[in-house]
């Protein structure tokens, strides 16, 4: 199926405004919303994964070594990861 151009014409709009592309919201980069961003100190990180679990944006992922990073394309800078990281491995800096 060819990519549809936005904004769609009435002939092109999906019937009933159904959306057939799951997780297509990833095309909308919410990273532009934030005022601060998380910075990881991997010397303190114990690789527990709590930050990954508590991120409402599902933007924190594990890398090959088992450390974690926030995807700054989507991170809204809420600070939950910073607050929940009990080894204090995350710092929020102005962005």
């Amino acid at each position, binding site marked *: 199926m060819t990519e549809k151009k936005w904004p769609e014409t009435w002939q092109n709009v999906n019937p009933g405004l159904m*959306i057939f592309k799951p*997780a297509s919201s990833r095309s909308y980069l*919410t990273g532009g919303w934030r005022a601060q961003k998380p910075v990881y100190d991997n010397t303190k990180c114990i*690789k527990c*994964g709590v930050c990954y*679990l508590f991120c*409402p944006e599902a933007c924190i992922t*594990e890398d090959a070594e088992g450390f974690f990073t926030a995807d700054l394309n989507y991170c809204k800078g809420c600070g939950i990861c910073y607050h929940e990281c009990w080894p204090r491995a995350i710092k929020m800096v102005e962005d």
Partner: protein
Amino acid sequence: MKGIIENFDLFAPKLVDKEEYYSSGHRACQGCGEALAIRLMAKALGKDTVVTNATGCMEVTATPYPTTAWKLPWVHVAFPNSASVGAGVESALKVLRRKGKIADRDVKVVSIGGDGGSFDIGFQAISGAMERGHNMIYIVYDNEAYMNTGIQRSGGTPFGASTTTRPAGKESVGNTTWKKNMAEIMVAHRVPYVATACHSYPFDFMNKVKKARKVNGPAFIHCLAVCPTGWRCPSDVCIKMGRLAVETGVFPLYEVEDGKYKMTIEMPKKLRPIEDYLKPQGRFRHLKPAEIEIFKGMAMLEYNKVLERIKHSKSWSEMMKS
């Protein structure tokens, strides 16, 4: 140091299903507890699930055409009818499977809604669907007000909370009544599995979702969802606020299986002072000490009711014998 940390293996987050069924790019506020709760719920449910969603924060932020944050099949119809749409989907999947028109495997129907679409406008639909015994889960994400339309009072708003339709003022303390006890109401509907949960206790919540999924009949989960925007607290303390709600006894986490009550998060003999929960929230900022006492009284009534039931409740199967 933080208060009660739930009993989980420190490395358990790494064992959780890595698949994101509720993806980034949704337009919820930063630090949204409800979005997190839905993300966790979806992980616990897995791919053989169908979600019906009431109008509310989660619906408008997740599916503005042409993009959707959902990786699960999802349908939204209107505000008060998540449960009745769910009942329709459940019946359709049942009969289509029986007639061999769709794959012969279990697909669970999960209807979700906010406290607005569940306690108030959606109450009738839930009551009907749960009473008729449809094989579905209803999960209410309770952020204690109609947040999507701008923080108006709901049946889930606790005493003393300032909302835009019952604001605190010179002549008003804010909301004057306590929350509807939806879990108790659902137990009265003889729902086989009823539980309260909170995203701040993710494994407890996900286990309850998994348990609810196994029930061959209706199941109901009341999940407290912290809304930093509406509760007027900083976004980074979202998880902490949920913990405080549980540790102070304001929102105990328990489950009712076949009528038998059980606390799922161990509570200490001496609860944390309620002021710890109220102080960080702007919506309670106006409360005077006498009013805090009233809040405490109402919260303790519900908490003690739960303790009583845990002590005395018998399972329904046992009680059916003469």
